[in-house]
């Protein structure tokens, strides 16, 4: 059985933000709890874009690490994030990632971030595509 808490510990930033992950059957789901310290624009009380970017990055790197049985998270080469709407600080952010192409050294990954609005409806907040690099000595 996978210990998902030890997975998040691999990225100290994810741990300090309070990101938690669990297996939802279709893949790992990452949750970032809403907190005042993540507010970017105080007038609309929304999550800062950089925090959303950080969640997407952690989601992609940890999903790849878990899927490929790596010893440590792969390094980021590039990431492009598209913001679709502002994410108000009133509810948590949920993210999941998908490995699209696994090369020997470079992995192509995508991820999305949603937020629950008006009760239960999940709204897509942002999505990202990234290239990650696997270090040779990090393959378990």
């Amino acid at each position, binding site marked *: 059985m996978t210990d998902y808490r030890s997975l998040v510990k691999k990225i100290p930033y994810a741990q300090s933000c309070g990101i938690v992950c669990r297996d939802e059957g279709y893949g790992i789901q990452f949750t970032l709890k809403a907190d005042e310290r993540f507010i970017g624009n105080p007038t609309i009380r929304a999550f*800062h874009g950089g925090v959303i970017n950080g969640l997407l990055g952690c989601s992609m790197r940890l999903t790849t690490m878990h899927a490929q049985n790596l010893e440590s998270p792969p390094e980021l080469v590039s990431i492009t994030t598209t913001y679709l709407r502002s994410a108000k600080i009133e509810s948590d952010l949920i993210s999941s990632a998908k490995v699209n192409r696994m090369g020997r050294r470079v992995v192509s990954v995508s991820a999305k971030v949603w937020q629950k609005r008006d009760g239960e409806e999940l709204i897509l907040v942002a999505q990202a595509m990234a290239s990650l690099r696997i270090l040779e000595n990090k393959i378990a």
Partner: protein
Amino acid sequence: MTLMKPNIIEFREYLSRPEFWDSYVGLSGVHSDLGIKIIDVGEDGVTMSFSPTASMAGSDGTNSCDLGPVATVMDSAMGMSVMLSLEEFSSIATLELRTDWIDNPKANCEISVRTKVDNVMEDLVFVQAEAWQEGSEAPFCRGAARFMLTRGEGNLSKVIMDAAKEQEFPDKRESL
């Protein structure tokens, strides 16, 4: 050519004065949390910096700073550049941010970000940024972003200027 509105001229004047930079940083929870500092506000761009801590590391093996804090400072510095490049107040939103990681940032070493506005269109602004560390000539990360002028709620420029005015004239708070 559109004439700059007086409040934009005033906004630029306030942001060019270092004594008001802390009031801008204090407005946002994430800025305070990361300890972001404004280093320079010029006509051609903005420079911000922060000191990464062990809790901001992107890997427990390297202690190199994670994407999240770097992207946060880039997005904030780019956003401020956009606000300063406009001829009238507008709320803005980041549409897209791309970052290329040329190298891993060194652990426990201050990170600085400088921006440059490429083009201001009717509804879009294109900005680029570089992140580098002390003792290194070359950036470890390059960013490019597109911002949209949303002209709706959430106009941060006005809030920043009001905070600066409140700092300068604390007794006239009621009249702001």
